[in-house]
């Protein structure tokens, strides 16, 4: 469905996107992951034909986004970053306007608008001005617009940004409902978001592709983290963690005098043995020593580590 090869975008000297290649099969839900400024929105803008890349190639359903923008736009439902909507229109009128732009036939359009309003839960605010809606409703209006023309590909740029936990949950639910029947590209800088909704992830960092693949495959590459809680002064514990040389460690003082150290990049049993032995040596009480299943966060730290990461 999506095929991207060596996509590069330069703004003057600044390289926003550096030879990124990936592909997405029909029906897949792909998460675009990366810190702010990683090039997620730039990639999406190029894929949605809003702007052109400096070099490289991108095809959607076989159509080149540079040469056949109209054909690409017809199979596309796109919600840009920050979900911009005209505040002076009513929800129903806005969707009607969008339906006309997307060339829905008149008879079909009214039915389809009612359908997407129901699906996205905005039917009860159809008569209200968009400018008066809460952020959660606005986000769902944006999604309704993206779904309107039954596009083959849905591209959502940060669909959950700025929403409260309840709204995030409802957007996530909507994404999962759509997942079966659409190819989707969703960007986020929130790892758990992607973990919960996507089959595959593409990780970008500073315009480069760090990794791409099925979620489980990538997770298999991530080494599990080890957590240890020792009773010691925080500074000593930090020094100790650094001396252990088990990769990046995060230490945080607990309220009861213990320090919780998390060794993000630690390998399995050897690490735990080492930690146990050295805590013993120093005479520090050890009350927890656990292996944590790797999270996407760990994977991300692994991948960006040493590449001046640290966002």
């Amino acid at each position: 469905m999506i095929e991207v090869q060596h996509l590069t975008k330069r703004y003057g000297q600044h390289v926003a996107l550096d030879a990124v290649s990936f592909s997405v099969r029909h029906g897949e839900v792909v998460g675009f992951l990366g810190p702010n400024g990683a090039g997620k929105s730039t990639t999406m803008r190029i894929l949605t034909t809003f702007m052109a890349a400096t070099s490289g190639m991108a095809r959607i359903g076989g159509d080149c986004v540079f040469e056949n923008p109209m054909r690409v736009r017809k199979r596309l439902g796109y919600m840009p970053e920050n979900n911009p909507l005209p505040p002076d229109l009513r929800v129903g009128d806005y969707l009607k306007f969008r339906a006309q732009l997307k060339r829905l036939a008149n008879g079909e359009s009214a039915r389809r608008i009612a359908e997407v309003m129901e699906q996205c839960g905005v039917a009860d605010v159809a008569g209200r001005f968009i400018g008066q809606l809460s952020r959660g409703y606005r986000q769902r209006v944006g999604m309704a617009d993206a779904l309107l023309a039954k596009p083959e590909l849905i591209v959502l740029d940060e669909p959950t940004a700025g929403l409260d936990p309840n709204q995030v949950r409802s957007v996530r639910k909507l994404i999962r409902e759509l997942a079966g029947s659409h190819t989707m590209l969703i960007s986020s800088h929130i790892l758990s978001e992607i973990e919960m909704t996507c089959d595959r992830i593409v990780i970008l960092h500073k315009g480069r592709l760090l990794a791409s693949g099925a979620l489980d495959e990538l997770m298999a590459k991530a080494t599990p983290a080890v957590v240890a809680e020792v009773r010691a002064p925080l500074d000593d514990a930090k020094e100790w963690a650094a001396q252990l040389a088990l990769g990046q460690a995060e230490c945080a003082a607990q309220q009861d005098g213990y320090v919780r150290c998390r060794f993000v990049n630690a390998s399995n049993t050897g690490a735990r043995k080492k930690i146990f032995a050295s805590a013993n040596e120093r005479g520090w009480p050890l009350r927890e020593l656990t292996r944590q299943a790797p999270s996407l966060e760990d994977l991300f730290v692994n991948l960006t580590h040493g590449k001046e990461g640290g966002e």
Partner: protein
Amino acid sequence: MNVFRALVRRELSTFFQGPTGFIIIAAVLFLIGLGFVVVLTGLNGHATPMPVTQVFYSTYFFWVILLLIAPVITMRSFAMEHASGTYESLMTAPVGDWQVVLSKFAGALVFYAILWMPLLACSVVVRFYVGESAVLGPGPMFTSALGILLVGCLYMSMGCFASALTRNQAVAAVSSFAMGAALFFTGFFSYFAGDRSDWLSQLARHVSLANHMESFSRGVIDLGAVIFFLSLTALFLYLTHKVVESRRWK
């Protein structure tokens, strides 16, 4: 065509969904009324060999309205969409660049035409009291309207161009006012040029908007003027299209 109509309707709705459009209409109504009163009291019952339409242009009310209102009408067209980000969802819908440019232009032009409707009322008043059709014949009325429309095409396209260049409405308004005023005042050189026939004087006469409008107000359709307005309109629309297209340049 359906898409184009939807775009033009959306353009017009930006004026009438809020108070903006009505405020502009009220301001223009006031200025037209003022100009009308000034013209009538100036005549003060005396006979004049000039058609009334021509007298109206010579009071400068027309030009003040045109120069001030054109930037206000067009400043939002692209700049507002740029600033709010709706430009991105517009340009990723299956609509062509030309459709967007022409619909913005057409929307502005229709609103501009609506603004001049009160002039019709003025002409009805004159006719009612004078009772002579010769004073305000259909000929000069028609050509004056054509002139107003043509100069409107030029100023609306200029305004759209200025608006496409920026995301700031104030910048759009000021730059389109600057362009409009510069074009208008360049025409003043034609007074100094007099009857001289060097190329500079000829050029000054050719770009003089006041000269062009004068012939329209006398009931004359000057083909040169028509071509002047239409070609400049086409030029600015072309430039606007280039600006819109430029986001997809590599």
